[in-house]
């Protein structure tokens, strides 16, 4: 580096230091004082006195010195900044000019980066409301939800009763304030029809605990919260805007809920999504609902901790409380062996266990896409740097410092990434809005999926980091390239062997990375197909469901309820579009399960929580036929079976478990909830096929059906087997229902839709991975194409010569395609090792979390298809430039250059 010295000295002279400033001021003042002193001596002053006199006449020398130094240093700092800025804007203008001369390069780079940055921005903005955006409550770090840990269910979200929650508040010193809540649905009755809305009931100072204020009116007073005063309600902004047209005088208005009037006292802002989005109304828990009953353990306690207290402190205090009370109330407090104290974000999100995993997978795949995009751009930039070597070498030779040259290449990178980032953010802005519909609103989130400041900061960081990936490699090469050689080369754009090797390595890496993503997509799609192929045990396809819940006022006893439902069933059954109609308390795969323990008389010893587990629901006999759940032996429920009859129908899994190898019909089953002390006796009247009830994957759990006739559950489902067109049937059912029960809102859903909700994890993952896989695949193909056409262009002279010497065009084409396939092959081998290695390392997690279903990470079918796909596209991508080269006129090729 013979020429390194000169630029460095030039650089130092420009940017002189702050110490130089004080030296210069000192010198300037010294010269001035000496000058004055000389004049004084000439006027006749004694030389010894002259300098003192000069200083005296000058004024305050010290103050002036420090003032001047300060001014001069400020000026220098500003000057240095200005110089940097000027240099940078000059680089920017230069970058603009050079890029204008290479519009194709600029377009491809910007488009590639935009896709990479958009993918990352979209995924981050998707994660933001679930994981990062602050909760809309005051000091959210102090808020916790308390759950009981039930060792038999291995479930840590156990609920508590009002007396228990009040005791916790009085007992735990870490608790500042505590309240309890539960949620469900109510009918909102209006003159133009009723509808079912989601509601949350609470006990205690819930709104003070959360620290949230309404946008209109007030929240509950202590008296309201006890449910003792006049009936009141607070509604959500969403409900206020959609159902009450944003009526500004809503406060004080009356609404009718389940047939009884209440006064609206306030409206909560849209971002108050407690306990999750979609809750439209908050109500004090009714006083008669068991506020003094310790056994009514139906509330989730939510507490504000005292400042400084930790969750661990609180948990220890509560564990001590549980331990103390367990022996006193073994059936109640004794149900729990400990407590869990969770932050609200975690506690309120039903999908918390899979969400971070799903998001990390997403983020990992988009990071891959970004890296592939950067690799592609780096490869292109390297190629360009190769052709620009002469220009750069000339500029270096006429004295441009290397630092500036590298800075220029980086500036070009930042410019491209900046434009790419801006385009990417614009794409994400559109995409993010579309995503809000994909994820169900019941997953607790803060605000909508949208681009907020946090997302933009993230995107800006990605955009700024990107050029570091793709522009530094060429910049580094330029900084190292020996000048003389480049100039001597003639610099006709000949690419050095190392550059070409670097590009090959990048393409190999790109193919490998893309393979990982595409293979992941393949596995996800295979899982999705496997999941949709699962035999549910029933035939969901032609079943329409409807949920109805008559107002409490209208059906106060079992007889009135049965009469209501008989009327409804009769009306629907009369429709020609309906083949069969049954009723049920719960539907399979509808995210509601009632667990139960069961045993035969012989095996039913000891506490129930040691017995095997099953789910239970109440149905009528027609439910089985309308769902298409076949009877295996015995009979279905008939008119004689009601709550009091004790008849039950069990699934095959339960029958086999109870009475292996013998007929279960006519025998007795003991069952009850895990916490009950005395089991209920049931007589098995029939055995039906197994069905998927709580989830699609995994083994079918045993199920116990009980008669619905005479039960007190107001909300029931109709399961209707449709004849002919489903949409027409849906309309007919809606008409029939509004004729027979005009005040009762009905929500109609095809059973198939409910089933498909259970495939959401796989469907969404397939969709996302699919999009990213496709992008990565396309980028890799582009990478191969770019490299091969570049190397063919480089070799056009050689090829022309070989053609002129009589080489076979087909053989030439084959050799070029072989080069492309070799690169792809190496990339695929590397990618395969990563897929199999990483796959095996994470297989346990992937399978346990149900992310992969019915397929292993090394699924040969998927891998074969994916490899075949890649080799085909690699051959295609190299064939195009190869054809072009082989078809070229040898004379032209030789003359070129």
């Amino acid at each position, binding site marked *: 580096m013979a020429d390194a010295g000169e630029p460095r000295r030039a650089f130092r002279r420009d940017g002189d230091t702050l110490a130089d400033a004080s030296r*210069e*001021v000192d010198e*300037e*003042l010294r*010269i*001035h004082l000496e*000058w*004055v002193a000389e004049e004084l001596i000439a006027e006749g002053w004694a030389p010894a006195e002259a300098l003192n006199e000069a200083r005296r*006449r*000058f*004024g*305050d*020398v010290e*103050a*002036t010195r420090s*003032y*001047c130094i300060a*001014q*001069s240093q*400020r*000026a220098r700092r*500003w000057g240095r900044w200005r110089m940097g800025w000027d240099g940078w804007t000059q680089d920017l203008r230069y970058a603009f000019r050079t890029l204008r001369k290479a519009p194709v390069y600029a377009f491809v780079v910007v488009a590639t980066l935009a896709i990479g940055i958009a993918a990352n921005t979209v995924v981050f903005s998707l994660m933001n409301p679930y994981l990062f955006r602050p909760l809309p409550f005051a000091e959210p770090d102090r808020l916790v939800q308390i759950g009981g840990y039930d060792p038999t269910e291995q479930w840590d979200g156990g609920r508590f009763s009002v007396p228990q929650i009040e005791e916790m508040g009085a007992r735990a010193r870490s608790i500042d304030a505590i309240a309890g809540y539960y949620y469900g649905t109510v009918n909102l009755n209006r003159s133009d029809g009723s509808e079912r809305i989601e509601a949350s009931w609470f006990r205690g100072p819930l709104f003070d605990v959360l620290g949230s204020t309404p946008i209109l009116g007030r929240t509950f007073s202590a008296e309201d919260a006890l449910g003792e005063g006049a009936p009141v309600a607070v509604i959500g902004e969403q409900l206020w805007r959609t159902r009450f047209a944003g009526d500004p005088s809503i406060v004080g208005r009356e609404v009718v809920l389940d047939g009884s009037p209440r006064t609206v006292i306030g409206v909560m802002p849209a971002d108050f999504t407690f306990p999750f989005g979609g809750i439209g109304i908050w109500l004090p828990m009714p006083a008669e609902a068991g506020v003094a009953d310790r056994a009514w353990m139906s509330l989730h306690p939510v507490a504000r901790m005292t400042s400084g207290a930790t969750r661990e402190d609180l948990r220890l205090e509560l564990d001590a409380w549980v331990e103390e009370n367990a022996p006193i109330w073994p059936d109640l407090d004794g149900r729990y062996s400990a407590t869990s104290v969770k932050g609200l974000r975690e506690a309120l999100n039903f999908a918390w266990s899979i969400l971070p995993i799903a998001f990390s997978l997403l983020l990992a795949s988009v990071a891959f896409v970004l890296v592939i995009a950067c690799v592609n751009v780096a490869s292109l930039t390297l190629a360009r740097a190769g052709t620009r070597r002469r220009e750069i070498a000339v500029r270096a030779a006429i004295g441009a410092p290397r630092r500036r040259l590298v800075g220029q290449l980086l500036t070009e990178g930042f410019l491209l990434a900046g434009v790419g980032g801006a385009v990417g953010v614009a794409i994400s802005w559109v995409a993010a809005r579309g995503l809000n519909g994909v994820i169900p609103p019941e997953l607790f989130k803060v605000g909508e999926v949208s681009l907020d400041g946090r997302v933009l900061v993230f995107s800006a960081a990605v955009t700024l980091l990107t050029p570091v990936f793709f522009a530094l490699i060429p910049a580094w090469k330029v900084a190292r390239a020996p000048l003389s050689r480049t100039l001597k080369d003639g610099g006709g754009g000949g690419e050095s062997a190392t550059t070409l090797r670097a590009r090959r390595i990048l393409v190999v890496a790109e193919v490998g990375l893309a393979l990982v993503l595409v293979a992941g997509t393949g596995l996800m799609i295979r899982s999705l197909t496997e999941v949709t192929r699962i035999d549910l045990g029933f035939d969901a396809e032609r079943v329409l469901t409807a949920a109805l819940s008559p107002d409490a006022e209208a059906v106060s006893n079992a007889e009135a309820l049965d009469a209501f439902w008989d009327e409804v069933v009769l009306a629907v059954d009369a429709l020609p579009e309906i083949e069969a109609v049954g009723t049920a308390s719960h539907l399979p795969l509808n995210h509601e399960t009632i667990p139960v323990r069961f045993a035969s008389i012989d095996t039913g010893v000891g506490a129930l929580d040691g017995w095997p587990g099953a789910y239970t629901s109440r149905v009528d006999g027609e439910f089985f036929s309308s769902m298409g759940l076949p009877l295996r032996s015995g009979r279905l429920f008939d008119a004689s079976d009601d709550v009091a009859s004790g008849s039950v129908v069990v699934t095959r899994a339960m029958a086999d478990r109870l009475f292996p190898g013998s007929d279960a019909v006519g025998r007795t089953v003991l069952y009850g909830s895990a916490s009950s002390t005395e089991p209920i006796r049931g007589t098995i009247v029939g055995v039906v096929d197994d069905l998927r009830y709580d989830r699609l994957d995994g083994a079918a759990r045993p199920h116990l059906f009980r008669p619905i006739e005479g039960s007190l559950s107001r909300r029931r489902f109709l399961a209707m087997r449709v004849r002919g067109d489903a949409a027409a049937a849906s309309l007919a059912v809606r008409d029939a229902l509004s004729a027979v029960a005009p005040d009762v809102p009905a929500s109609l859903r095809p059973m198939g839709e409910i089933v498909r909700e259970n495939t959401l994890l796989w469907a969404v993952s397939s969709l996302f991975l699919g999009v990213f896989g496709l992008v990565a695949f396309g980028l890799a193909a582009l990478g191969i194409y770019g490299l091969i056409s570049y190397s063919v262009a480089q070799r056009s002279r050689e090829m022309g010569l070989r053609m002129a010497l009589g080489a076979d065009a087909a053989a030439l084409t084959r050799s070029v395609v072989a080069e492309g396939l070799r690169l792809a092959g190496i990339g695929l081998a590397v990618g395969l090792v990563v897929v199999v290695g990483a796959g095996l390392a994470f297989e346990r997690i992937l399978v346990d979390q149900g992310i992969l279903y019915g397929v292993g990470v090394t699924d040969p079918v998927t891998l074969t298809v994916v490899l075949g796909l890649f080799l085909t596209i690699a051959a295609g991508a190299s064939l195009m430039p190869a054809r072009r080269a082989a078809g070229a006129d040898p004379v032209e090729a030789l003359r070129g250059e």
Partner: protein
Amino acid sequence: MGRRIGGGVLPGTADLLILKSLSEGPAHGFGISKALRTRSEGVVELQDAALYQALHRMARKGWVTSEWGVSDQGRRAKFYSLTPAGERRLAQEEEDFRRYIQGVFRVLQGPA
């Protein structure tokens, strides 16, 4: 930093006087000091401390630039010269001062 300016000049006029004397060409601090005294026949006497403070302040503001050079007498010195921004400033200050002085005179003449 007006506290250092005083004695021989009206407050606020130091910048104007220095810029004016630089408008005839580059000069060092000692030269400016002498020129002001000579030109005003001893009436204007700007203290050297105030002069140098004003020069550095105006250099920071970009009204003047400085450069080391050699004086007529062969002495090394720092020479100050007006920048275009300094010329604009000088015109502005002159105008302001003229208007001020005219106002003062009008007051001194008393009511018409």
